[in-house]
């Protein structure tokens, strides 16, 4: 269980997303590295790893985001849980399957955040939000997720933690 690596990544990932990654933004949308990390942590490490990674990185995001504290903690923890549950169905994955699951998770994440906004800020037009924020971000995440899988996960040969042990509650990163 490499929790120190998780902490280091948590400390680095959000600053990277708020500085360097904005240069890679298209129009006003940039990929969500936090969501991608939570997906991989949940998928390869199990639900618990996904929830912990999602909560920790969500807190980091909330601290430097314009939104209320708790929005990203909740949404990213849910994504971590869903990633872990998705991971139960697959012993291994491919780049295409990864992209499909990242697309699905990104859209679900967008809908969760939209629902939260709808709850605290009435009258947000769903079609506009979906068109300008949720869908572009999901597509960008999908492409980035495929690249991350191909360049990092495959090259480092990261395996599921429970593939060769009885425990699947710790991330093997």
């Amino acid at each position: 269980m490499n929790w120190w690596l998780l902490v280091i990544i948590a400390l680095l990932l959000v600053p990277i997303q708020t500085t360097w990654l904005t240069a890679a933004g298209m129009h006003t949308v940039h990929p969500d590295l936090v969501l991608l990390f939570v997906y991989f942590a949940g998928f390869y490490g199990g639900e618990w790893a996904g929830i912990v990674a999602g909560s920790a990185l969500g807190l980091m995001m909330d601290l430097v985001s314009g939104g209320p504290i708790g929005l990203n903690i909740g949404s990213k923890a849910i994504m971590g849980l869903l990633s872990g549950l998705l991971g139960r169905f697959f012993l291994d994955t491919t780049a295409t399957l990864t992209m499909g699951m990242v697309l699905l998770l990104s859209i679900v994440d967008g809908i969760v955040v939209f629902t939260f906004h709808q709850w605290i800020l009435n009258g947000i037009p769903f079609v506009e939000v979906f068109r300008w924020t949720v869908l572009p971000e999901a597509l960008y995440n999908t492409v980035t997720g495929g690249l991350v899988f191909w360049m990092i996960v495959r090259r480092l040969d990261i395996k599921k933690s429970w593939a060769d042990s009885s425990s699947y509650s710790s991330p093997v990163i």
Partner: protein
Amino acid sequence: MLRQKAIHRRFIILFLIILLIGVILFPEIQKRPLHYLSQPIVVAVTGIQAGMTWIAGGFTHVWENYIALVTVRRENELLKQEVARLQNDKTQLQEAALANLRLQRLLDLKETASFRSVAAAVIGRDPSNWYRTLMINKGSRDGVEVEMGVVTPVGVVGRVIKTSATASQVLLVTDRNSAVAGMIQRTRDEGLVEGTENGMARIKYLSLLADLQEGDLVLTSGLTGTFPKGLQIGTLGRATKRESDLFQQAALVPSVDFSKLEEVLVITSLNGRPEHPDRSDPTFPGTKGDGK
């Protein structure tokens, strides 16, 4: 026998002396007979000269281009390093010149504006795609408070929504949660500028009688305490006007390019500025005492 030989030698010497005197005294002899006599010798000597020069040239060529290249190679490496260093210096100088220009414009605004302000550098942007915010490197320790306005020489940026001791978060005018009181410069019609989902802005609650034209300048109206009156927000885009509505609204193109913001001014007080602005203000990036 020896005597005869000596006499014969004297005659030869005498003949040569007479011949030499004759050659000197009668130049015609040089032109004709001696000329013909010397030709083969000259041809032979010059041929040898040419051959030796060719050999020397070939040797020099081989030496300079194939053998003595150790220093040239080293010199080439040094020159390449020098070129790389000079290119780097040039880039840094260009960057410094651009930064100087930006800071000069910011300083001009700071000195001529009717409000007190603190300069700050942009250090980050919102991690999510749901909010449009900036993080600046000045916080409550520098006198920055929530609800203070943030501007550049080009126009309005937004307002401070969160502060810590050393940093603050600025909500851009293009965020859907932002609202700034605006006014159309030409017609003096007032409305409310707010952000849209696509990262642009619009001005709402304009009178149905307002005569709107694309390209009209939209300024702050000064009705709220965040911004003074007359700061540029953007220019009007297409207006939408329906008879069933009580108001009309129009798209607004912000004056500021938020993706390229590097330095901003936070308006700390609307109550005027010092009569003699202090250029060594330690809160201004790059000025003396800033520690940078």
